[in-house]
């Protein structure tokens, strides 16, 4: 089967755009990715659109109404926070299968404000707040507390993740927020769900990102100078574990995806130059250091203490600012992190460039659950 290459990729600067529509935001990123590839919508053979909140509203088709109704197949994808990566993977798969040579994947979301999760509705009385909390800050607080119980990880260590990622975002013009937050500021911010304070929760923003993918044959024909090779694309759902249905297990789901991704790419975590992982909450990032094999189990606290995951450290994590600071528009995140890694592999990341970037890994996980991991390689 053919190798698949990213020929064009871009994202809009994340922010709040209440006066724009979701298709308008998506169309913007799509056009930017096409321009980046030096191609037109007429050159695309299919469009995969990732959007969660309007999943039944034909967002992909409405994007084509903005940039050119060429009659190509459109698939609208939804997979919680893994929505964008799922759209990207579907695009990848269609080329791998030999069906198409040139495909575009677009991820877009308009978020509104407030907590995610904790649903309600239906008969009876709402359980939220009565039978514990099912909100996302709580789910990830629980996961963090479990890590704390096993390894003694402290509130301060979790908070350091926010300090790091907020600092990184000051170097990223595409990030929603670009504000330094010292440790005391993070720890003294409003407590949402212990140990996650407001500054340890990802920010709800509007955003979009898109990627143009090509078969090897097409990529060679068009030129490989700025191409990025997709070395691995993996998607998993959450395998049953003991408490998974009450306390969603983001660890097993991620470990399964990471293992398959390293196998598919033929590399190990030690070969990675940078990682963009799913820091939906500061506690999550700590867990994923271990889940992605960046360190041994129990070592994540030491990793953040020693600055190993900061820009300039042993394995830079979330130099984009991550979901905590760049923002987390659900449908866009899974392609925005592909943009970040690709930009470093192309040597175009400016002030936040990880030197000599060769392999990068992207990771997203959506509750319910879906975990997607991609490994990208610089084309020599």
């Amino acid at each position, binding site marked *: 089967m053919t190798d698949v290459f990213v020929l064009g990729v871009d994202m809009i600067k994340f922010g709040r755009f209440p006066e724009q529509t979701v298709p308008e935001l998506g169309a913007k990123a799509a056009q930017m990715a096409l321009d980046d590839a030096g191609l037109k919508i007429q050159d695309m053979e299919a469009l995969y659109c990732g959007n969660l909140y309007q999943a039944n509203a034909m967002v992909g088709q409405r994007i084509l109404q903005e940039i050119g109704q060429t009659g190509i197949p459109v698939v609208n994808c939804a997979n919680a926070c893994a929505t964008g990566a799922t759209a990207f993977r579907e695009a990848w798969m269609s080329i791998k299968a030999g069906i198409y040579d040139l495909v575009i994947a677009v991820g877009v979301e308009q978020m509104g404000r407030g907590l995610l999760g904790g649903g309600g509705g239906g008969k009876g009385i709402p359980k939220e707040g009565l039978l*514990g*909390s099912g909100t996302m800050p709580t789910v990830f607080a629980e996961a963090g507390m479990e890590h704390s*119980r096993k390894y003694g990880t402290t509130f301060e260590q979790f908070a350091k993740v926010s300090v790091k990622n907020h600092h990184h975002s000051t170097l990223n013009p595409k990030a929603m927020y670009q504000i330094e937050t010292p440790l005391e500021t993070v720890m003294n911010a409003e407590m949402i*769900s212990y*140990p996650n304070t407001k500054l340890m929760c990802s920010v709800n923003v509007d955003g979009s990102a898109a990627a143009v993918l090509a078969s090897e044959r097409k990529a060679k024909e068009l030129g490989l100078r700025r191409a990025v090779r997709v070395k691995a694309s993996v998607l998993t759902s959450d395998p049953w574990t003991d408490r998974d249905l009450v306390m969603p297990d983001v660890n097993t789901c991620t470990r399964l995806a990471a293992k398959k991704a390293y196998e598919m790419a033929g590399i190990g975590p030690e070969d990675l130059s940078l990682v963009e992982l799913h820091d939906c909450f500061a506690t999550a990032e700590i867990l994923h250091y271990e889940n992605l094999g960046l360190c041994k189990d129990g070592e994540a606290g030491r990793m953040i203490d020693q600055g190993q995951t900061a820009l300039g450290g042993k394995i830079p994590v979330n130099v984009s600012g991550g979901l905590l600071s760049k923002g987390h528009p659900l449908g866009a995140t899974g392609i925005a992190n592909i943009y970040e890694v690709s930009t470093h592999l192309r040597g175009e990341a400016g002030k936040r460039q990880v030197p000599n970037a060769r392999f990068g890994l992207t990771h997203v996980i959506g509750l319910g659950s879906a975990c997607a991991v991609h490994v990208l390689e610089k084309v020599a």
Partner: protein
Amino acid sequence: MPYVSAVVDLEGGGTVKGNLIGIDPDPAKIKMGMPIEVIYKKAPRKDAEGNEYLTYYFQPRS
């Protein structure tokens, strides 16, 4: 109002989430593995038709 959302393993198997009451919502005072008992009380909410509900809570085992 801060409250405590707790995930509890039950003797005999199974895991349930609920509110832990009868304790200060202070992370320093709540320990993993602390013994818990289940009690039942009337829920503080009624549904749209005015029906009352009985619900479970966790509290520290006395």
